[in-house]
């Protein structure tokens, strides 16, 4: 038992990169929110890294085996939220918010696992029957999360499922065709958006129209980033951050803090770390011993990448505000835990890749 749980050291190369990223994140968080937040975040990161270590010890066959149960479990939780959420609506908002967050986070892992599980024995690229099954599996999760309503997360969860299909080798013609179809149905989708969601998209197109709310946030964020210059204003001395012009500076807008205080140089370092992490994970995926492992690792990595893109794009004014944290840097427990569990799965795949040959 002991031997089994302490045999595998998570991929040292990836771990070094992750720890560097986390350390950098905490340094920025100190400037954005003070020691109190750093301490609290450190506890969560400790918990996340411990989970990562233990997950590494588990053989990927186990995940594969339990995938349908994990998926069904997370769908049940989503349904529970749906019913429970309605009965308390209007009474206490925090309760409503509180419960709805957890299962949809879980879906970001369980959905790609489930789609990969569907494809595990078929020949690749999958035929249309498997694609229909995958579409159903994705649709259930997305629909339930969209109903909560949480547009941002439902888009991310859909993407995590689509990545698996992409990696499974679906034909380019099919990808092109679907993209055109989605583009054409955009006006229809617009119809399904809530009023405040429409407002955010409109605000993104014209931030000056709403200078006091979300538009204000983006303007202030761009000033913070731009005024940072190449070398930055220096740690804990960014005026935008310290004088509270920058909104939500320890959560969604923490990259603006980094940009202001560490300049383009800091951004370069951060992006390099992210880039190397992604490349390492994609390499692990490529080396993995079977379809399931490859698809899961690949999709989890790409969703991590999407997080970075959306957050970095949003705060610099090239994407609409959807409230996505900067992975492993933003203050907040849920996303750190989910991400480190995903990395745990990836390091597990890496540690067990040679087992068959032994």
């Amino acid at each position: 038992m002991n031997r089994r749980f302490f045999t595998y050291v998570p991929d040292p190369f990836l771990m070094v990169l992750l720890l560097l990223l986390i350390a950098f994140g905490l340094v920025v968080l100190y400037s954005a929110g003070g020691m109190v937040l750093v301490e609290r975040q450190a506890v969560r990161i400790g918990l996340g890294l411990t989970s990562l270590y233990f997950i590494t010890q588990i053989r990927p066959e186990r995940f594969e085996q339990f995938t349908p149960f994990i998926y069904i479990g997370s769908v049940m939780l989503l349904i529970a939220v749906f019913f429970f959420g309605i009965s308390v609506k209007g009474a206490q908002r925090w309760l409503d918010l509180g419960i709805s967050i957890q299962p949809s986070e879980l879906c970001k892992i369980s959905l790609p696992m489930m789609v990969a599980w569907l494809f595990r024995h078929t020949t690749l690229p999958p035929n249309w029957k498997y694609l229909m099954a995958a579409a159903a599996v994705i649709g259930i999760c997305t629909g339930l999360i969209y109903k909560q309503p949480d547009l941002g997360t439902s888009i991310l969860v859909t993407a995590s499922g689509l990545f698996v299909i992409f990696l499974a080798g679906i034909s380019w013609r099919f990808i092109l065709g679907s993209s055109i179809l989605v583009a054409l149905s955009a006006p229809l989708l617009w119809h399904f958006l809530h009023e405040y969601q429409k407002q955010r998209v409109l605000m993104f197109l014209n931030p000056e129209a709403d200078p006091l709310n979300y538009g204000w946030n983006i303007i202030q964020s761009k000033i913070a980033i731009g005024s940072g210059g190449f070398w930055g204003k220096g740690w804990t001395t960014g005026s935008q951050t310290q004088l509270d012009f920058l909104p939500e500076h320890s959560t969604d807008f923490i990259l603006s803090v980094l940009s202001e205080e560490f300049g383009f140089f800091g951004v370069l370092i951060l992006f390099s770390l992210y880039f190397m992490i992604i490349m390492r994970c994609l390499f692990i995926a490529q080396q993995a011993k079977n379809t399931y492992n490859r698809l899961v690792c690949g999709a989890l990595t790409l969703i991590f990448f999407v997080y970075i893109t959306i957050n970095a794009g949003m705060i610099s004014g090239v994407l609409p505000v959807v409230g996505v944290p900067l992975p492993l840097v933003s203050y907040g427990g849920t996303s750190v835990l989910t991400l480190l569990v995903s990395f745990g799965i990836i390091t597990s795949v890496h540690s067990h890749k040679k087992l068959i040959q032994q």
Partner: protein
Amino acid sequence: MGKQLKQPFHEKRIFTERIIVAVIIVSLIFLLLLSRYFYLQVIQHQTYSEQAEQNKIKFSRIDPTRGLVYDRNGVLLAENITTYKLQFTAEKVKDLDQKLVDIQSIVSMTKEELLRIKEQLKYNPVFKPLTIKAKLSEQQVAEFAVQKHHYPGFNIEPYLNRKYLHPIEFSHLLGYVGKINQAEFDRQDHEIYANDDYFGKTGIEKYYEKQLHGIPGQLVTEINAQGKQLSQQIKKPPINGVNLNLTIDLQLQKASYKAFGEETGAAIAVNPQNGEILAMISKPGYDTNQFIYGISQNNYDALSTSSEKPLFDRSIKGGYEPGSTIKPYIALAGLYHQLITPEFTMFSNGYYQLPKQKRRYHDWKQGGHGHVNLVNSLAESVNVFFYDLAVKLGIDNIHAFLNPFNFGRLTGIDISGEKQGILPSRAWKKANRDMIWFPGETVITGIGQGYFVITPVQMAQALSILASKGKINPLHLVQQDKPSNNTLPFEIKAAHWETVHEGMTSVINAPNGTARAIKSTDYLIAGKSGTSQVYGKSEEDIYKKNDELPKHLRNHALFIAFAPVEQPEIAVVVVAEHGASGTKAAAPIAREIIDFYMQSTYSEPKALDEAITQLGGTGQYNNEPDNE
């Protein structure tokens, strides 16, 4: 289908190809992002640096003050009081758990409250203040001020909050405000509402939310590079909410509530000359002030599950059969259609039968009332007279005649939540029951029974039209200038109005009147009692007398009245739930309300002896009718 077998190497090749594509896309997007940051931080650096330098001005919101509510005499009903709340900003507090324990030496918290704060902490952004206690006592404010140094990150924030001065009597009429919820917030203009604003949830507060709320202003604060505040200036002053002057008389409202004693129900007093509502209550009321700071689950459950239904606004939502209070209107319809004249008499032998049918429709008095004319039939509430008249009129005429009196239609009163009710007709029955109309149903329509569902406010609107002899003044609660010149769509002769008024006057003032017990010697009151049947009785309960039934199965008691008859100034509708008898339970309440109004309006009572003698002097009768 040659690809049935797995081809590991082929698949690995496909996957590797996809990974390469992914690497290319990831690299490209990273390059794009980097170029965006390069553009902002290196190329545009100068511009943004200057903006950051100038960025010493902060905008913040100045909340408008919510409009006050006064009664018709300028007495305050709803005001705003300065309240202090204790809050903390999570990112500025060290060792939060310990501090939250320590602070309880100043403000006590229940386990439930502490749990709620802990839960909120998870989702509230750390830089946003979180409220511990929405309402502090003066002593708590003082204690905190002394120990402030011990609690960095905690602060006390003053803010204006709603207070209702007579919450019980006005709970349904004024309603209450509470924190705006997400659904309400999404529908509002975000320039005007903040997401933690107060919002009218029921009653006047809801109906007049827009006017009462006001428009926020903007505060400009200038700070220096060290973050020190240099100046503060109002860029745009807030536009405070409009004050409302109600038509309600506070004293009459309180007297009306008190007149109910132990009974529950609703009462509405209006001035039929202009449609002003002088008093409008639904009993029991409840303390609306406890909703403002967020009512505890226990208290809310107690209110919502109480058998007396205090949260239910009977005055605009309660649906009742009008019972015999419909008779004056039926009488008017008969006169208008020339089916009867004021002189017409008939013989009441105690029951009515439709031709060729066995079923007997009874009078409340065994053996009948003998020879009666219209005035007597109203005074004694002779059912047979109105069974016969209803059948002669037919349901279509009855419906067409009652409709303009606002039965079964929204009155449009300026308060939220009014229910429509039902004025039965052939069309209604076809649409809702998918059945044809039966002649027997016309019979009982004549005494206000059957499919009727009428709200007290509709009864009050109808009575106002009846008392003012055909003037339609829409009922309202907030004073307005525009007079209404509406009249009924048909013209009713003055003599016909007189006859019906005389009949209603006899109900109270004639020796044979059913409600002679409430007769006043100071002024002439006209009225009519009614009984609204309560359904759901068991077979054996149906034959029991009301007194023998448990309270919740007894019929509702109704009374409508107006005074003085010559020039009505007040018209009153009273519904005493499960009061059993309109004359016994509802009529005294109506009398008390009218008395209070007349005494406070006229110091000297009007002498009306002459009129009273004309109607046959003062009779001394002991056998009071039990059923109208």
